[in-house]
């Protein structure tokens, strides 16, 4: 992604926008209430929590790494919040602490991955279980629902005449922040350059270890923030909070056009993919399509999202046979975990 001018039309983002409009049109035929402003804004709440995770994961994936422990970090955050709420600590104190705990959990992942050079998938698989266990240890097996009202505000309140969810504003701010970080700062360029070629970046003087640890810490901090939103949306904290939601998050990141091997992608693509997935889910809900079918659709979309580059390459080869080349050895590389 050297220069913007080189990007091939149609942009992936454009395709996503068309798909969102298509899914929206389909949804509006299902229910007369779909196109009301209340409904449209309200339905965004469904993907704010996975959306916060996806923003953080996008940064980690741009480095060519992965973090599947993020959903477990949410659980650590929610049970910690329940302890604070029970102790009567005001949210102004506990919220920064929970975000910091999330960042710490993330930084620990980053330390294992970057400093000790361990494979990120295996490490975060381990910490996924460990953090989940930690959440149960902190919160015991009983759920906590007796939250102080101030704790619920961020995730449950609406502003502007009760139309726009506060959590949507928070998500939008975070999206702009991460977009700025990845596309307008030196740090972001470093992330993409590490994702493209770690060795070359290192020779160019990029502190690979520090960059990676910061990315993981950011993802963890966003998961901590998502925990606060969770409390407001569901009003309950338990060790199994957000269990299994990582599939949706990874789907959004990949469908958003972030190359799973690192180095390519845009944050706006991720945000659009979240809107697309949210619209499809919302529409399927309106059409009374059950959870299992939704899971199948989600899985198919994920596969379609990753088959896209291969399909595009095949199309290009068909339309321009002169560029046909034999499959190189890079075709063998599969998951790019190193």
């Amino acid at each position: 992604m050297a220069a913007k001018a080189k990007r091939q039309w149609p942009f992936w983002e454009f395709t996503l926008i068309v798909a969102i409009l298509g899914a929206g049109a389909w949804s509006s035929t299902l229910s007369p209430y779909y196109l009301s402003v209340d409904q449209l804004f309200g339905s965004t709440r469904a993907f704010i929590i996975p959306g916060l995770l996806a923003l953080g994961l996008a940064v980690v994936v741009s480095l060519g790494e992965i973090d599947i422990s993020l959903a477990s970090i949410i659980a650590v955050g929610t049970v910690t919040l329940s302890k604070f709420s029970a102790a009567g600590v005001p949210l102004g104190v506990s919220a920064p602490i929970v975000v910091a705990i999330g960042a710490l959990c993330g930084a620990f992942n980053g330390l294992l991955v970057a400093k000790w050079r361990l494979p990120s998938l295996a490490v975060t698989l381990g910490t996924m279980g460990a953090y989940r266990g930690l959440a149960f240890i902190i919160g015991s097996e009983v759920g906590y629902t007796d939250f102080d009202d101030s704790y619920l505000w961020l995730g449950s309140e609406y502003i502007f005449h009760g139309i726009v969810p506060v959590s949507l504003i928070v998500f939008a701010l975070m999206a702009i922040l991460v977009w700025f970080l990845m596309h307008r700062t030196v740090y972001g360029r470093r992330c993409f350059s590490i994702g493209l070629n770690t060795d070359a970046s290192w020779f160019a003087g990029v502190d690979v270890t520090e960059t990676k640890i910061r990315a993981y810490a950011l993802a963890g901090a966003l998961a901590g923030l998502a925990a606060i939103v969770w409390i407001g949306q569901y009003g309950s904290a338990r060790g199994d909070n957000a269990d299994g939601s990582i599939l949706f998050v990874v789907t959004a990141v990949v469908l958003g056009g972030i190359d799973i091997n690192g180095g390519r992608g845009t944050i706006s693509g991720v945000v659009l993919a979240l809107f697309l997935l949210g619209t499809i889910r919302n529409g399927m809900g309106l059409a009374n399509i059950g959870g299992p079918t939704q899971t199948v659709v989600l899985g198919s979309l994920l596969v379609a999202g990753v088959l896209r580059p291969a399909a595009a390459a095949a199309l290009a080869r068909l339309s321009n046979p002169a560029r046909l080349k034999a499959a190189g050895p890079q075709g063998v590389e599969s998951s790019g975990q190193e």
Partner: protein
Amino acid sequence: MSDQPVPAEAAPSRNLVQFVLRLREAGVVVFLVLLGLTFGLLNDRFLSVQNLTIVASSAAILAIAACAQGVVLITRNLDVSVGSMMGLVAYLTADWTANHPGISPAEVVAIAVVLGIGLGAINGLLVAYGKVPALIGTLGTMSLYRGLTYIYAHGQEVSSSRLPHWMLESADIRIAGCPIYVIIAIIIVMAVAWFLYAYPLGRRIYAVGSNGVAAWFFGLRAERVVMFAYVLCGFLCGIAGLLYAARVGTVNVVLASGWEMSSLAAAVIGGVSVSGGSGTVIGAALGAVVLAAIDNGLVLLRVPEFWRMFIQGAAIVAAVAVDALIAEAIRRSTAGRRR
């Protein structure tokens, strides 16, 4: 990256330390012995023959699943649809068996195996020929297969009363005091280990995972090898799913969910590197025994269930770290011969 993938090739090695370092199973065996001694000291029931039989028996199915995961990991890929494949095969097979009274055991096994191979082949097509990153492709089929199970089941379950007696009783058969599941698991794991060790296709699986570029220059068709690894994985998951169904009796839609993680954990603990090319399926099976021993020991010690999750997660991280240390030690000891 790992060096020579085969422990046995190091047999004529000049010093013993190097040889032991190259034996990927050494770490997990030592860990298993230490674990056994610790639990044995803390609770005298742990090391009784009866309890060890329980541990082996509960590890049997996971050992097969870990073996399946191990084959794919060795090619430098992974398969997170293992649990969903087991679940789908188990449900479809049990449902078919329940609707066709008088079906023979051989037919049931054939159905399970064919289904498993089919599901594995889909994964293989995606990853080997579709060039989809393994994690993403199988994450997709994981939800796809599980979703299909839900849709097919339609809120129902196959109750044990509808299954033939021989199927339910097969889980309790013992030969010379040893549960048949343990024997089946040992036979399968040994067969796969021998295949990977002694047959050209088995060696190619290591070659592709160890250094894909070199394998390509050597003329190996990586796509076929990876495809085969996924098909073998599906085949083994079919067997594991059927065994699981026969053991639990009542087959529901969530059967074996989460097993993708347990199988991955077992393989990693058993010394199979997620970076491909090294480790053996015997190690992966031993990793399954470690997980079963931890579970069993913690229950005997009355440790709350959620500590197990924490300890299992920590064990994975520790195993990966030890793996990296060993790889580093090997790299240093052979540094002169490397580029």
